[in-house]
């Protein structure tokens, strides 16, 4: 999905002289074309993420539309006060592009596991939050962000998933029944689709925009199901599980809610996303086991 987003920004720079791309020295073989083609609207600030955000705010003061790129954990955790003060309080239309989500960087250890990023930003009301679950949505997202003109964080999974091929902020993939609905986003949506392929009774809801949620429509979409299992590569109380629990209470939907998610930091070494998805029961087997157990 990263490629679709980067390509879309590059294309928009040709027609929109306000688009400015910044990186904190990340994106090898990806960002070089920005420097070559648009040297006055590209900046590598170096390994200095606080400055990445502060400089982006200065550019926004000049009327630019900054897209600031680095690995998600550096973009969010390192810069929380800059995001709060210099983006949120000012309501600047800065887009933080965080590459990698969940366990995309599995063997690199817990500093690079991105399981608490967007939940941290839920504390800042001004920031819209996205996690594209397909190349279709990723390709659509840049124009959407330019049109909203709002502060935003995009957590970009490393994969390039073709399904669900939709540009909607959430996508319902009905099952044969209305007993169990799996809700997910990003990489974990693929695990849910794998589970649905093995048990067609399961319905799957894929969410691309994590905030704002389309409350009324989502409440009505969720209401018919007897139970909902939220599957995510993020701590659940700060994640979509927490958001949906609040939403359902607000809309008096009494559906039973369950969570499949990591619950702690781990020093385990696994060579891929799959290792940690198995560990926390986020893979197809884990999801089907949870369906059978609850």
């Amino acid at each position, binding site marked *: 999905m990263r490629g679709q987003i980067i390509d879309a920004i590059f294309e928009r720079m040709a027609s929109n002289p306000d688009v*400015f791309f910044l990186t904190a020295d990340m994106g090898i073989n990806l960002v070089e074309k920005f420097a070559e083609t648009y040297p*006055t*609207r590209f*900046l590598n*600030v*170096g390994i*200095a993420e*606080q*400055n990445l*955000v*502060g*400089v*982006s*705010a*200065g*550019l*926004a*003061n*000049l*009327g*630019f539309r900054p897209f600031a790129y680095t690995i998600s954990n550096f973009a969010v955790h390192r810069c929380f*006060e*800059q995001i709060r*003060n*210099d983006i949120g*309080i*000012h309501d600047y239309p800065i887009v933080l592009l965080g590459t990698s989500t969940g366990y995309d960087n599995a063997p690199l250890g817990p500093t690079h596991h991105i399981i608490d990023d967007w939940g941290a930003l839920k504390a800042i009301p001004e920031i819209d939050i996205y996690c594209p679950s397909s190349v279709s949505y990723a390709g659509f997202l840049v124009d959407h962000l330019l049109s909203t003109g709002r502060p935003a964080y995009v957590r970009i999974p490393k994969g390039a998933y073709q399904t669900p091929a939709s540009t909607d902020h959430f996508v319902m993939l009905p099952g044969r029944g209305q007993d169990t609905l799996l809700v997910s986003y990003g990489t974990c949506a693929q695990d849910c689709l794998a589970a649905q392929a093995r048990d067609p009774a399961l319905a799957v809801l894929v969410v691309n925009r994590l905030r704002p949620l389309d409350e009324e429509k989502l409440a009505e979409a969720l209401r018919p199901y007897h139970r909902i299992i939220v599957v995510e590569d993020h701590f659940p109380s700060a994640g979509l599980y927490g958001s949906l629990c609040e939403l359902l209470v607000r809309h008096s939907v009494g559906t039973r809610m369950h969570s499949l998610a990591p619950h702690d930091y781990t020093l385990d070494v696994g060579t891929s996303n799959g290792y940690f998805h198995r560990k926390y029961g986020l893979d197809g087997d884990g999801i089907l086991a949870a369906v059978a157990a609850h």
Partner: protein
Amino acid sequence: MTIQTKLPTAAAVRSSGFADPIAIRLTILDMLYRAKASHLGSSMSVVEMLVAMYGSTQVEKIRDRAPDRSRVIVSKGHCAAATYATMAHFGIIPMSLVDTYHTDHSLLAGHVSHAVHGVEHSTGALGHGINVAVGCAVGLRSRNVNDALALALVGDGEIQEGSVWEALMLASHLRLNNFIALVDNNRISSITDTDKVLDQRPLAQRFAGFGLGVREVDGHDVTAILSAIRGLTAGDRPGVVICSTIKGKGVPFAENQPIWHYRSLNDQLYAEAKAAVAAAARRA
């Protein structure tokens, strides 16, 4: 690229009638007394620096929010009273607005806020504004605006924040000669002497080591600060003006006293402070 600012002479700034540091100090005392507000010490130390900063700009462009205006960013946001008083004396905001400082429903909080017309960026947490100022300098260059500056006012305690040095490294790397930081070197940070907390002396060599042009001046001499800004903009790199100041300047019982970062004025001290500042005006 040469910066083509039309910097006024000190005499021109003085004759403008807006920028008398003594009058600004009296306004600050009124604001702090009425509001029972703190931060008297640094509000008094930065007055001449703010006069020189706004005096280095085309103020009418700031008033009109012209896209090609110079950007004045007060990174040490607790100097809000001094900032608002100076802006009012330059005619950027009305004095009637200043009168509401620190009161219910006012736009004027105890830290600088962009809710106030003419303020570029809200600050209060340290080590933020200077980074934004560097972003403004990058943006001005990208927009091909060659007659405007990005000026950041930072404290000598504030420069203990690592993010300050991230900003300076980038400014130096990009040779942003439209960026100047002015350091309020009053030698006192939050609770005690800056040098006792984290000794960064010699400051000039530190900044020079980061590749910046450096001037050291008397921070209560508007002419000297203006001259330093003028000299730095003629160069090919970003600059730092280290302004030697006195925290609480002009208020004898508060001068160099860390507690006046926090304390507020009662009736008697307000009268004493006003009398001292007025007496200084008579001596001048």
